C-alpha cells in the first residue's frame, strides 16, 4: 500500500450548527498532486482547513504522515497557503519579513534568523520572482504579487505537504504561470500537493487526481478531465460532431456544476 501524506477518513464538519462537510474520505498519497474542486459553499475550503487542524471535526479522523493532525509534532512538514485577499496587516511589513514567518517552525523561541533561515527565504523569493521586491512593503504589491508572497511563505518552510486554498482566485495570468512553474518544480522534488481551486487554468496538466465536492459530499474522485486552454485553441478547423468528449461520469449536467 502506498504511504499516505494525508488521510481524512469519514470526516464531518459542522459550522454554527450546520453540517458543511458530510462523511468525506480524502486520501492523498505521498508525492501525489490532488486538486479539490467545487462551487462556492461546497465545503472544499472547510475540509482543507480541518485537514490542517484549523477546524474541529464533528466526526472522523485526519492523519498527516501517520500522525493525528492535532498531535503532529513536526509542523515543518506542512506548508499552508490560506485563502486571503492580501498578505498585509495593520502595520507595514516587508515582503522579506512576511516570508520569514514561514520559517517559524524551524526557529528557536527567541533569537535572530540563522543563515539557513535567510537562505530559505531568499530561495523562496527567487522561486516566485519577487527577489527585487524583498524590501518593499507588502501592502504596495498588486493582489497577484501578494498571493505570491503567501506562496513563498509556505515554500520557505520546506514542507513535504503543501496545502493551498484557492491561490489562483482572482490573480493575474503572470501569477498563475509562476504558481504553475513553482508547483511543477515541487512535484519533481516529490512534494505532495493538495490544491483547492475554482478553476485550474495552467495547473491542469500537473494534477494527478481531482476530487469534486458538492454540498459537502464527494461527487467525483478520479483523473482530472482534460481542459487545456490557450491561444492555440483559437485555430480549430475540425468538424463539430456534437459528441461528448468523455463518456461516463463527466457527461451530462457537468460534474463541476
Amino acid at each position, binding site marked *: 500500500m502506498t504511504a499516505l501524506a494525508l488521510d481524512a477518513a469519514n470526516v464531518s464538519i459542522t459550522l454554527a450548527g450546520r453540517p458543511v462537510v458530510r462523511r468525506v474520505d480524502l486520501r492523498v498519497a505521498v508525492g501525489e498532486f490532488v486538486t479539490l474542486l467545487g462551487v462556492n459553499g461546497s465545503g472544499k475550503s472547510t475540509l482543507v482547513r480541518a485537514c490542517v487542524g484549523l477546524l474541529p471535526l464533528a466526526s472522523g479522523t485526519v492523519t498527516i504522515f501517520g500522525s493525528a493532525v492535532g498531535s503532529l509534532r513536526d509542523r515543518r512538514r506542512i506548508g*499552508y497557503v490560506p485563502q486571503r485577499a492580501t498578505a498585509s496587516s495593520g502595520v507595514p511589513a516587508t515582503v522579506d519579513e512576511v516570508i520569514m514567518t514561514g520559517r517559524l517552525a524551524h526557529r528557536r523561541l527567541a533569537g535572530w534568523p540563522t543563515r539557513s533561515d535567510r537562505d530559505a527565504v531568499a530561495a523562496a523569493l527567487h522561486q516566485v520572482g519577487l527577489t527585487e521586491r524583498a524590501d518593499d512593503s507588502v501592502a504596495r504589491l498588486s493582489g497577484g504579487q501578494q498571493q505570491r508572497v503567501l506562496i513563498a511563505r509556505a515554500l520557505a518552510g520546506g514542507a513535504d505537504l503543501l496545502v493551498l486554498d484557492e491561490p489562483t482566485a482572482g490573480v493575474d495570468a503572470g501569477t498563475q504561470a509562476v504558481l504553475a512553474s513553482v508547483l511543477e518544480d515541487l512535484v519533481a522534488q516529490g512534494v505532495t500537493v493538495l490544491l483547492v481551486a475554482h*478553476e485550474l487554468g495552467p495547473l491542469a496538466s500537473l494534477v494527478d487526481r481531482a476530487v469534486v465536492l458538492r454540498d459537502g459530499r464527494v461527487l467525483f474522485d478520479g483523473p482530472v478531465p482534460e481542459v487545456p*486552454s490557450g491561444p492555440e485553441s483559437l485555430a480549430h478547423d475540425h468538424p463539430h460532431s456534437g459528441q461528448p468528449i468523455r463518456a461516463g461520469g463527466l457527461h451530462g449536467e*457537468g460534474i463541476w456544476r
Partner: protein
Amino acid sequence: MVNLLDYDFMRRALLAALLTGLAAPAIGTYLVQRRLALLGDGIGHIALTGVALGLLTGRAPLLTAVIVAALGAVIIELLRAYGRTSGDVALALLFYGGIAGGVVITGLAGESAATLNSYLFGAITTVSDSDLRIVVALAIVVLTLGVGLAPQLFAVCQDEEHAEVSGVPVRAYGLLIAVLAAVTVTVSMRTVGLLLVSALMVVPVATAQQVTRSFRSTFATAMAIGVIASVSGVVTSFHADTAPGPTIVLIALAGFVVAAPVGAFAARHRHRSEPFSEPDETSVIDAHDLSESHPHEHGPRCGHVAVSHGDHVDYVHDGHRHAAHGSHYDEH
C-alpha cells in the same frame, strides 16, 4: 534655568515617562497590527474598576488595577477568540462595565472626584518611590517579552491561521498580548492616565507607519516617538504649567500631523518613480479571445462537458472552453 533633575519628583516622573514611552508603543504596534487599536482604551476603562477596588480596600491601586485589567483583557481575548461575540462588542461590554464600576466603587470608598481624575488623566509628578518600583518592574517585563518574542508575536498578528498551522500556540500568544496590553495600560496610568493611555499606544505607531515600510522599523520608530513625546511632554508641562498626560498626548499628535504629509509626499514620489507596476488582475479580465461561430448553441443537451467558471458556465469543446457572450462564444 531651573534644573529639572534637581527635583526628586521630576527624576521619578522622567524615568516613568521614559519607560512608558518605550512600553506603550511596543505593545501598541501588535495591537494595531491585529486591528485592535482600541483595545487599550477598553482595558483602561476596566483598570478604573481595579483602581477603585484598591482605594476601597486600602491596597496599592497600581496592583489592584493590574490584576483587574489583566482579567478584563483575558475575558475580551477569550470572547474574541472563541467567537462568542465580535471583538468590538466584547470590548464595548467591558468598557462600560469598567467605568461604571470604577465610579460607583470610588464613591463607596469615600474618595473624591479629584482622586479619580488623577488616574483618569495621569499625575506623573506625584509618582512615589513604591509606584516607581512597580512601574519599572512591569515595564521591564513588557519590553523583554514584547521585543524578545517579536518573531512569534509578529507572525500571530500578521496571519493567525498560518501561525497556527506552523505550530505556534496562537491562543496562548493572543492571551499574552492581551495581558501585556493590560500591564502596559497600568504602567502608563500614572503618566498619561487611563483615558489617554491608548493614545500613547496607538499614535506613535500611526505616526511611524507614515514613513516606514518594514515591521522592524515601525516598531523601533514608534518606540522612539513614544519616548520623545513622553519625556518632552513632562518637561514642557513643568515649564508651561500644564497637565503632563494631555501634554504628552498633544505632542504625540503633533508628530503625526507633521509625519502624515511627509508620508503622503514620499508615497507619491515612489509612485512617480515606478509608474508602471506589474500587470494586475485587469490584464486577465481584458483578455477576450473570440471563438468562431457554431453550428449549435451550447446548452445542457449539446453533449459538451459543462464547467462552472465564476458566474457562468463554459463548455469544453475539443480541448478548449467556450463561454457564451452575446451572439458569440469567448475562449476561456
